[in-house]
Every structure is written in C-alpha cells, then in structure tokens.
C-alpha cells in the first residue's frame, strides 16, 4: 500500500499542500482532481520522491520513500510525465528500454530486452517497436510512455494527466489500458486528471483538491455531486447517471457574487 500521512508542502511561504492523507492500494485506480494550480502535480512529485515534503510521511509497503535510494524507488514506482519529450530521436523499443534503468548496471542485458518485448507485446505495441518515437502519433506516444513505466515492473504508477492532448478514442483506449494494467498486474495507480467524466468512468476512488487541501476522497458516486464540484471548480453543473457512472455536464462559470457568498458561508 502507498500511504500518504499528514503531508504538507510549501514553496517558500506559500502553502501548496496541507494535511493530505491518502492510501493507494494495489490494483486500485485513484484520480486526483481539482482546478489548475491546486497542487496536483506537487502531490505527484512528492509521491515520486522528487521533492521533499515539509511535514508528513509517504510510505510504500511500510518503507519511507525518502529513505530509499532513487534506484530502489524507481523499482517500486513508475512515472508517466505529462509532456512528451519534444525531440526524442530513438526507436520505441529504445524508449521502453529506458524503463529498465533501475535494473541495468552498465548496459541493458538480454533479460532487459526480453522484458521490453514482452511489455510491448502485451500492450499491442509491437508493430511500433522499431519506429522512431518522434514519428508516432500523440496517442501512441502516451501508450509508449506507459509501456516504459510498466517495464520498470513497479507496484505503483503515477501519471500526470494521461488523457491530456489525446483525441476521444485515444483517451478511452489509454484509460482502458490503465484499468486492465491495474487489474492484471495488480498495480496501484494514482493520476492527476482534468477530465471529470473519464475520472468517474475509470477510477475506483476520486480525490478532490481545493487550494492544497483535500475536500473529499470517495467513490465516483460519492464525490461527483453538484455541491462538491461547484465548490471545487466554481461552476454550475448538471450530473447525469449513465450505466451507473456519474457524468458531469458543465453549464456556466459560477457568477462572482455567488462565489463570494459561498466563501462567507
């Protein structure tokens, strides 16, 4: 289990995250939602051990992640960044092979190549294997970066807005791929998301952040209510339930005077 206890983080004097408590179990998908600049990426960076929280702990399978070596951490937790490298003139195979870094001493071994071709095969990416990463589509790039993280053979996966910049079909494909990975490989997934509907369709639990604080943490049905979405995003919404999933239809940005009234309450 990935445990976040009492986590706070400040950039200088600005408080970015405050008292976050969160658990990610293996096999579970958790989406972190909230408007821009609310601290989603900071939370993910803390989970990856890239930045040190000011207070609180992050434990992975009962070990403090800050006490692990970067290599040890990279064997337990995989990362899929938000942006693709702008120029990455290598083959898809090479890109996925990089995920083997935590296991490679000097140069990748035969076993590393084996793992990479298995991952490519299991994710139906083998037809891309020897193509240049720069020459495949955005949706394919996203899948390749997920494949790289899977090649790390991690217990947990951290993704920063995996559906960003993808067309609708690729959004569904990527999400579906993540859902299957979580179940088949028993990986715990935590991802920052912008799309409310993809989050409610594919997550087991949703965490809402508002100015660095956790507003709620529950199943999509518990979290996706007009009241919560209106307070967090300051918009008027309509929620419809289709096939048991709550779908949000944003209507209007909330008028300024109503926002002030809510703040006073």
């Amino acid at each position, binding site marked *: 289990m990935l445990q976040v206890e009492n986590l706070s983080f400040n950039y200088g004097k600005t408080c970015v995250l405050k008292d976050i408590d969160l658990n990610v179990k293996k096999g579970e998908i958790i989406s972190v939602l909230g408007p821009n600049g609310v601290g989603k990426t900071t939370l993910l960076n803390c989970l990856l051990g890239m930045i040190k929280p000011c207070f609180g702990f992050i434990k992975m399978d009962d070990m403090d992640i800050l006490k692990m070596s970067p290599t040890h951490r990279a064997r337990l937790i995989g990362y899929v960044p938000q942006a693709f490298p702008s120029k990455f*003139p*290598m083959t898809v195979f090479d890109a996925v092979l*990089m995920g083997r870094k935590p296991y490679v001493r000097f140069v990748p071994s035969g076993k590393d190549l084996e793992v990479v071709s298995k991952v490519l095969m299991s994710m139906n990416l*083998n037809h891309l294997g020897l193509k240049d990463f720069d020459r495949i589509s955005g949706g394919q790039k996203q899948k390749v970066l997920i494949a790289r993280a899977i090649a790390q053979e991690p217990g947990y996966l951290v993704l920063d807005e995996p559906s960003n910049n993808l067309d609708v079909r690729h959004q569904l494909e990527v999400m579906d791929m993540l859902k299957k990975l979580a179940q088949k490989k028993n990986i715990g997934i935590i991802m920052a998301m912008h799309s409310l509907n993809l989050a409610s369709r594919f997550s087991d639990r949703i965490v809402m952040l508002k100015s660095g604080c956790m507003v709620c943490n529950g199943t999509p049905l518990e979290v996706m209510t007009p009241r919560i979405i209106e307070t967090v995003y300051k918009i008027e919404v309509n929620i419809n339930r289709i096939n048991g999933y709550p779908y949000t239809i944003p209507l209007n940005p909330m008028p300024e005077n109503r926002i002030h009234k809510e703040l006073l309450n």
Partner: protein
Amino acid sequence: MNTDCLTIKNQDMKNQYKALKYRSLVLLVVFFGLLSVIVVIALCVGASSISVTDSILALIEDNGMARSIVWNLRLPRIIMALLIGIGLGTSGAVFQAVLRNPLASPFTLGIGSSAGFGAVIAIMFFNGLVNEYAVVTGAFIFTLLSSFIILGVSRYKGATAETMILTGIALMFLFSSLSSFLQYLGTKEEVHGIVFWFFGSLSKAGYREIVMSGIMILIPMPFMFRFAFDFNLMTAGDESARALGVNVPGVRMFSIALASLMTSGAICFTGVIGFIGLVAPHIARMIFGSDNLFLIPASALIGGVLVLSADTLGRTMWLPHVIPIGIVTSFIGVPFFLYLLIKKTKEYW
C-alpha cells in the same frame, strides 16, 4: 492467439531490435577499418619522398632516413591527430547529450575561447613565443577555469541545460573580447604568434605531448561509456530520468567536468582546432542514430577520421607549405557537413 505464437512474436521483436544494434556494431568496425586505412596512408605520404614500402618497413626495421622521418615526424603527428579527433569527437557528443542541445560543443561552452585567452596571456606575459610549455599551461589553466565557472554557476543555480549553455556562451564572449583586447596591446610578433596558435597546428607534436594529451583524453573515456545509458535517459527529459533513478545533476556535472578535461587535452598542445567537436557527433548521429552507447564511440572514430585526413591533406596538398589544421578541418568539414545536412532523409535530432 495461443501462447506459443506469442513467444515466437516476442522473440521476433527482440531479435529485430538486436539486428538493428548489430548493424551499428558492424558499422563501427567499418569505421575502425577506414581509420586504419587512413593511418597507413598518412604514414606513407609527406614532403619527403619516401616510397610506400620504405615507410611501412620503417615501422619494424631500421632503414636509415625513412625510419627517422616516420618515427620522429609522421608517427607522432598521426597519433596526436587521432587523439585530438577522439577527444573532440567524444567530448562534443557528451556535451550535446547532457545539455540536450545540437549546438553544444566545447566551443559554444566557451572552453575554446578560454583556452585561447590562456594562450594569449602566456604569449604576451610569460614569454610564450619562446617557451612553448608556457602556452600549453596557460591554455590548460584557462580551460579548467572556464569549466569551473560553468560548474560553479550550475551548482548555485541548478544544473539545468539552459543554465550551463547560457553561462558558457557568456564566458565565450568574455574570453574572446579579453583576447582581442590583449592582442590590441601586443607587438607584431606576439599577435602573429597568437594568430598562429588560433589556427591550430600539429607541427610541435612530440611523444611527451602525446603522453600528456593521451592521459587527459583516454582516462575519461571509460566513464563516458559508463554513463552512456544515463545520457539516453536524459534526452527524454530531466524529470523522467530522475524518476527512473538517474542522479541527473550529478551525472551532468561529472560528465561536463570530464568532457572539459578531454577538450583541454585535445587543444592545449595544438591550438584551437574548431568545429570537430560540433560536427563529428552530428555526422555520427546521422549514421548511427542517437543511442549514446554507439554514438559516443562513433563520434570518437569519426573525429579521428576527420582530424587525421584534414592534417594529412594540409601537409601534402600545397607543398612545401603546411596549411594549419584548424583551417583545413573547416575547409573539408563544412562542405561535407552541409552535404549531409541537405541529403539527410530523417530527423535525427
């Protein structure tokens, strides 16, 4: 699809990838062969007309004049040219990889112009026209100084590619204007000596210089191979390289320090032989792709080929004159480079 079929396909993918890498390995061997051929040619040609057989025999037996010319004039020059090519090619590839910038080279980072400034100071204030070691020492001290400044600023402001490149370019302008200022004050002889140093010349290469350059160029080599896979990860971005366990600032600073040492070893005895550090890695990239495991040795070999052929042409083309190597490398390197740039079919950077 049954599992047997999956395994076969799986093997297939792996083997295709391996085949791709074997192709690169074969190409490396081809370039090594090419380099060896050029070495033999360089041994056999020169101002004094010794026959090809005599030149080669001179390597193994005492045949008088020929032996002396081959061992004391041609061989040291060839070895020095190879060392310089290897040093500049490798360090250029490393600079481009860790700074993630196709324009990065020892010279864009100010290392060339700081070496020049060191040489200028030695020539003007430490009797460098007579005492050649003063020039070498000056150039060496100032290359180290400029890389320490770059590393120092990076330590303070974070070792990002941008910080390093901007610091390097600022230093380049500082040192070249300082050199110009001193030349403005210098006597005619001093200015002549300075200009000649900037052209680059292999004429003073002897075995003692070779040993010192060799130490500076060859000792960092294994470390560069050690980090080649990390360099690959860093081309995908600092953030994801760090998430995969690479100590990005550490690897970047350490490899910049070593690559600067290599550059220093290549240029402090012979002057600023520009361009190779920029061009050899690009040619290598067009032929071998961007995998640093192959790119680094390929840049070294291509650097060697370029410097040695340039020097061999420079000392035989226009007898009895010897055209300074810095000029010849640009003469043959630039058109060749432009040709490849226009002809290339795929984006390699």
